[in-house]
């Protein structure tokens, strides 16, 4: 236990925690996306409704929910704490600093992109998760809730922007985690970049296709 606390207190340890928790979170994204693809079945949402109704009845899912929530909080708190420490370490700002010439914008704006994704997530949970758990009536259809919400241009555009920012966050986050784990060796750097495309490009596009689908009223 003491070794673990010591590890967390070190700079490298904290970064490892941010990376590891981030990995759990993106692993969930894959499962979430595949489940949601049922929205595209041309059965008027019947399959999606069954899926949405079954989910909370599975004990493992309830456990994963709680674990995921804790991991998410841990990810945010640790990342915000490192940001604070980094701000202190810098001290005064330069009169002129051409950061754009030496590093990528995505790598310098992780706190900002992460914060916006977080705000989006609170809204997302309120709109779907909370409604399905606590406001579901007799003839409740999750498909209908999703369709009605995403048919609203305000929300669908917001969802698309949020997915863009998620991609932005993961563009840096994915490969950065490998660097922190000590696995981003020269040999694997390009492989990591390529696998990263799945997470920062394909998965956000997959999610964004849902608001686009309902907005265009297919």
């Amino acid at each position, binding site marked *: 236990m003491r*070794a673990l606390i*010591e*590890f967390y207190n*070190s*700079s*490298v*340890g*904290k*970064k*490892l925690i941010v990376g590891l928790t981030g990995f759990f979170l993106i692993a969930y994204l894959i499962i979430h996306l595949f489940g949601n693809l049922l929205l595209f079945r041309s059965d008027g949402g019947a399959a999606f409704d069954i899926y949405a109704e079954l989910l909370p009845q599975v004990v493992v899912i309830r456990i994963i929910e709680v674990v995921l929530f804790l991991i998410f909080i841990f990810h945010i708190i640790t990342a915000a704490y*490192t940001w604070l*420490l*980094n701000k*202190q*370490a*810098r*001290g*005064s*700002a*330069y*009169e*002129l*600093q*051409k*950061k754009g*010439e*030496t*590093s*990528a914008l995505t*790598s*310098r704006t*992780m706190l900002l992109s992460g914060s916006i994704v977080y705000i989006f997530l609170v809204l997302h949970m309120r709109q779907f998760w909370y409604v399905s758990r606590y406001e579901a009536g007799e003839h409740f259809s999750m498909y209908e809730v999703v369709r009605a919400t995403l048919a609203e241009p305000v929300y669908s555009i917001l969802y698309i922007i949020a997915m863009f920012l998620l991609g932005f966050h993961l563009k*840096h986050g994915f*490969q*950065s985690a*490998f*660097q*922190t*784990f*000590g*696995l*981003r*060796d*020269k040999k694997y*750097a390009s492989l990591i970049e390529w696998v990263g495309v799945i997470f920062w490009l394909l998965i956000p596009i997959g999610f964004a296709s849902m608001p686009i689908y309902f907005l265009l009223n297919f």
Partner: protein
Amino acid sequence: MNFKLKIWRQYDRNSKGKFAVYNVTDISPDMSFLEMLDAVNRNLAKKSEDVIAFDHDCREGICGSCGLYIDGRAHGPQRGVTTCELRMRHFKDGGTIIVEPWHSKAFPVIKDLVVDRTAFERIIQAGGYISVDTGSAPEASSLPVPKANAEEAMDAAACIGCGACVAACKNSSAMLFMSAKVSQLALLPQGDPERKRRVQKMVETMDREGFGLCSNTYACEQECPKKISVSHIARMNREFIRAKLF
């Protein structure tokens, strides 16, 4: 060539600094940045004014003494050069050049453009060495080192400790500097017996000295005059995780 220089002036560690403007004329494009500053200082000395303090020693890019934040970049706009190797031809004639000291809590300004980099010394003192008795020069093949390892260790050993990595990092992190030493010694058989203790002590000291954490922006690699790769940071992370948890 003519330039307008905006240079940070600060009397000592405790006083508040400010920018001063100097107009310099008749600068040869082949002059190094430090030679240009020498010219400014000669003029200041003639007028009995306080000359601009800056660190320098070998003036051939190997000692790591010089290091200025020039026009928003550590060691100026060129890649893979120290301030002393930077030539004035890379600047626009008649333009303004902003010159600042390294900015970092762990590198306090001593005077003008000179910062206190002894925090680096303390990181090295914490474990950046081999304490086993290596004796006199051994037989060439008595301690086999694979060619690739020797090359990579040599690349890491190229670090001159100038501090550009810290200066360029938005978090003022010393990870590239520290990892270069950890990586160099981890790659060689001589460094093996103390590898666990070394990495833990060096990370601990780096954190205590007030350097920031690594965000993997890789700005350090871009600004390093010796082009030291961030793959050494990955190796150091690996060493640290292994030493702490396994």
